[in-house]
């Protein structure tokens, strides 16, 4: 177990280095780059050269990378020239808002999806199962922004049930405005979890230990909740870790639709104004969150499932 953890941790470092090298070179491949974005299209070559020298953009890419990485190791995500502030002043509050949205949305998806998935697996091919399957497939197939805008139209515009999110006010002063984004989020997440739980339970229900439990006279309730449910939950932990990038990706569409000032919206705005430092910082932060999440999920998996033996 300790050996596995050490190896897993070393792998994580390799992945982090690959990701930072990849995103750094990718973002610096943007034509014109940062300087163009700051100085505008009318900048003369002399102006560009002097600004590049001032900010160190004339240095070779690997020098820029190592300097940037050195700063990153000290917790400095970079300096945003276009807003003249450290990247973190905008990014950290946005990250907090994204995490609030993603966590509540995912929790909603889990709370609805997992019991539903179990019910579907136990009562498979019944009317309820088929209807739930249909709805979850729509959750898979519908573009998130479409779902979000329909909800806005129905519940904010036609029926004034939930107000629209207002950027100017603090996040927690308008909890009702958070309902629709979270529901949109939860709808997509519920589709994933109910489908996954359904197949996970169906895999477990044919296992020998279930037959043993039944033959020992355990009630159906005890078989499902005491044995099948707990075993079916194990792969959910892994999938939760693996789906972190998808969770953060999903936030982009929802934040744009609801004008929710999280990292996704910030990233789209930075992309439209080629704000490279901000894009770089957000990509690295989300990736680090994902990598740490995956590591935690793997460790949790090894702890939860005694059958897993890592050597």
């Amino acid at each position: 177990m300790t050996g596995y953890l050490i190896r897993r941790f070393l792998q994580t470092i390799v992945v982090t280095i690959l990701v930072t090298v990849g995103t750094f070179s990718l973002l610096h491949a943007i034509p014109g780059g940062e300087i163009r974005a700051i100085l505008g299209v009318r900048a003369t070559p002399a102006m560009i050269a002097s600004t590049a020298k001032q900010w160190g953009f004339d240095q070779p890419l690997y020098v820029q990378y190592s300097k940037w990485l050195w700063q990153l190791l000290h917790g400095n995500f970079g300096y945003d020239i276009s807003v003249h502030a450290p990247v973190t002043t905008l990014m950290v509050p946005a990250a907090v808002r994204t995490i609030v949205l993603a966590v509540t949305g995912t929790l909603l998806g889990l709370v609805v999806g997992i019991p539903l998935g179990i019910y579907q697996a136990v009562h498979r091919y019944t009317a309820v199962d088929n209807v739930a399957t249909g709805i979850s497939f729509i959750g898979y197939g519908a573009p998130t922004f479409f779902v979000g805008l329909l909800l806005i139209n129905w519940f904010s515009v036609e029926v004034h049930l939930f107000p629209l999110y207002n950027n100017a006010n603090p996040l927690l002063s308008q909890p009702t405005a958070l309902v629709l984004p979270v529901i949109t989020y939860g709808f997509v997440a519920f589709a994933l979890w109910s489908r996954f739980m359904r197949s996970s339970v169906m895999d477990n229900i044919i296992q020998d230990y279930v037959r043993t439990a039944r033959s020992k006279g355990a009630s159906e309730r005890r078989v499902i909740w005491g044995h099948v449910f707990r075993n079916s939950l194990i792969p959910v932990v892994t999938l939760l870790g693996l789906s972190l990038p998808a969770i953060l990706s999903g936030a982009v569409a929802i934040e744009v639709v609801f004008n929710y000032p999280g990292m996704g919206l910030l990233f789209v705005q930075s992309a439209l104004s080629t704000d490279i430092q901000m894009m770089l910082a957000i990509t690295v932060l989300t990736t680090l969150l994902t990598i740490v999440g995956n590591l935690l999920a793997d460790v949790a998996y090894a702890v939860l499932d005694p059958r897993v033996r890592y050597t």
Partner: protein
Amino acid sequence: MAIPHTEMSGAVVTEAAPTAPGGGQISAKPRSLLRRGWEVFAESKLALAGSGFVIFIVLFCWVGPHIYVTQQVSTPIENAYCTPGGAHLLGCDNLGYDTLGRLMVAGQNSLTVGLLAAAVACTFGAIYGAASGFIGGLVDSLMMRIVDAVLSIPYTLVIIVLVVIVHPSTLTMIGFIALIYWPQPARLVRGETLSLRTREYVQAVKVAGGGRSRAMFRHIMPNAIGVIIVQATFAVADSILILSLLGFLGFGLPPPTTDWGSMLSQGLNFINLGYWWLIYPAGLLIIMTCVSFNFIGDALRDAVESRLHRR
């Protein structure tokens, strides 16, 4: 979908028969396996409905424009916002384009990008994964860390950066989506390869003096093809959704090229004006196409798994 399947299974027979005892019996077996797979697939009414819808939508997009002829390049502006009925069965959009005709043209782009991106991603991913699993050791470890790295960056962020760097067209869009999608099939096929490479018939290739690439392309890949096709089916739906999200965020195919996602997000600007024909047809087509591919993928997975269980 069925055609490569048949060919590949055929290849297995001719290659495997001489090395296996009782070749006559085995040469009859794959066809029955395939038939059994088909029976499992056909058991799912949803999958049949999905296949039917995919055939319909392909005809709609490519044959439709020859039957329902509309002007999709230049357009009389006085037609703008015309209501459904008469010469324009589904009305016109804000520029006077006939909506039904535009849905066909947009569908060509959505489906082309979806199908080709899925094909490219899964082909490359499959070869990568098979090579990684087959070579093993340090190379495998490094190749898989690259996969981890790509998987841990939220895909929307990467694709937005790519679209900012290179101006999007149908062709580059296929490349971009493939670029962020290939790690998933790669990981799956690697897992499959790890279990296949210990089989007798793969070992027999080595004994008989066949090279690594022969074992990989003639024996491992054909046997992993089921997993690859299932993944490719889901990839089509995912690619269509990614393309539509990009259209919504303003990074989609530039006009006059359009896709369902761009049409939908343009139509959503008029959501409060009652121009339902600009919103719901495009939205429904995206949802139904993606749901259909998901239905097909689900049933194919069941079919492939039943094949694997009886192997």
